[in-house]
């Protein structure tokens, strides 16, 4: 990072050396938890920036999560709708959930797909991993699952959701029609599309 204005990158920033380390000038001098609940801690890092000033940067640290783009044989994807108590509204999104300790993203995706929808995935692969926002130190993985066989779901008590399948284009239109759209479903479908795993026509 030069910070001295515009650079015209040839292709995807190919001038950037693999071992570039832009973090040298930033130093974490303190890290404090200010509040905790069973699911995450909220706190801040006190960070000394390149100009020597120390600032507090707040965060929460929930468990990493996975979302599954599950494609059935006839070229449809599986989506779930459920009330989300945290957001206080119903969300339409891909199946998914929190990654257990020691579990891989792919294993967690296959487990959540089975528990929430009953679908057993014969094949599953990792598509991408990202941080949805800068506030949460939580990775979001996208897993693409195929070779689906139906079975019984295994939901927690009180877990209440509806399962649908539709073409990717119809799902994307349905996600877009909600205001606000729920980003995890949207980002997951678009990540699978960018990776060349899912193609769809918009209506």
């Amino acid at each position, binding site marked *: 990072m030069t910070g001295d204005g515009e650079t015209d990158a040839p292709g995807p920033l190919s001038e950037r050396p693999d071992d570039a380390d832009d973090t040298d000038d930033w130093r974490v001098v303190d890290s404090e938890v200010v509040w905790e609940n069973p699911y995450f801690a909220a706190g801040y890092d006190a960070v000394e920036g390149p100009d020597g000033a120390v600032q507090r940067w707040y965060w929460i640290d929930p468990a990493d999560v996975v979302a599954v783009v599950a494609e059935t044989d006839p070229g449809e994807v599986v989506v779930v709708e459920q009330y989300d108590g945290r957001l206080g509204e*119903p969300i339409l999104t891909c199946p998914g959930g929190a990654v257990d300790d020691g579990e891989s993203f792919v294993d967690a995706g296959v487990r959540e797909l089975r528990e929430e929808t009953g679908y057993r995935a014969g094949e599953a692969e990792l598509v991408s991993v990202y941080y949805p926002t800068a506030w949460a130190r939580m990775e979001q993985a996208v897993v693409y699952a195929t070779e689906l066989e139906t079975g019984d779901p295994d939901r927690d008590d009180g877990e209440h959701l509806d399962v649908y399948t539709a073409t990717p284009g119809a799902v994307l239109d349905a996600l877009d029609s909600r205001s606000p759209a729920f980003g995890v479903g949207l980002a997951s479908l678009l990540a699978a599309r*960018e990776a060349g795993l899912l193609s769809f026509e918009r209506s």
Partner: protein
Amino acid sequence: MSGDDPRVTDDWQVDDRVVAFETEYFEVGYDVVERPDGERSRYYWIEPADVVAVVPVTDDGDIVLVEEYEPQLDGVTLGCPSGGIHDGESPADAARRELREETGYVADDLTELLTYRPEQWIRMDCTVFLAENLVEREPDRDEGEEIAVHTVPVEDAVDATLAADVVHGAQVTPLTIAIAEGLS
């Protein structure tokens, strides 16, 4: 799939909203909710300001991306210009301001594409704008803010953002949204 589908909200009742702690950037707390099975549960959240993300397209059809160190994630991000909406500011005004501050570009045309909620713990929406007919001016950065501005062909932009040290969804998903909306 349509809006006529049976909704799953009817039997959920929010009994209380408790703010447990306040930072200068967000409230953290929980709702006490009575579920359809009659059980009461706490659902935890944080509530920061809503944000905007801008997909700026130059007259040559390239995408303008910003690269900077992100202290909250302790790594370098690369993606669309983005930032929080100030009190009393419209999302469109915030988009123009963030674009100018971070890149120096001023957009003659700004099109709102979509508003989405990036994830479940955070009661925060991100509104995505396409910015076109860009005019280059001096960036207007905060002191200590170091940002490298890159222009990248559309077809390389997503790969570039995914190759960053830290992949920040709020700066990448808007780009894939714009591409899905027909940007090419």
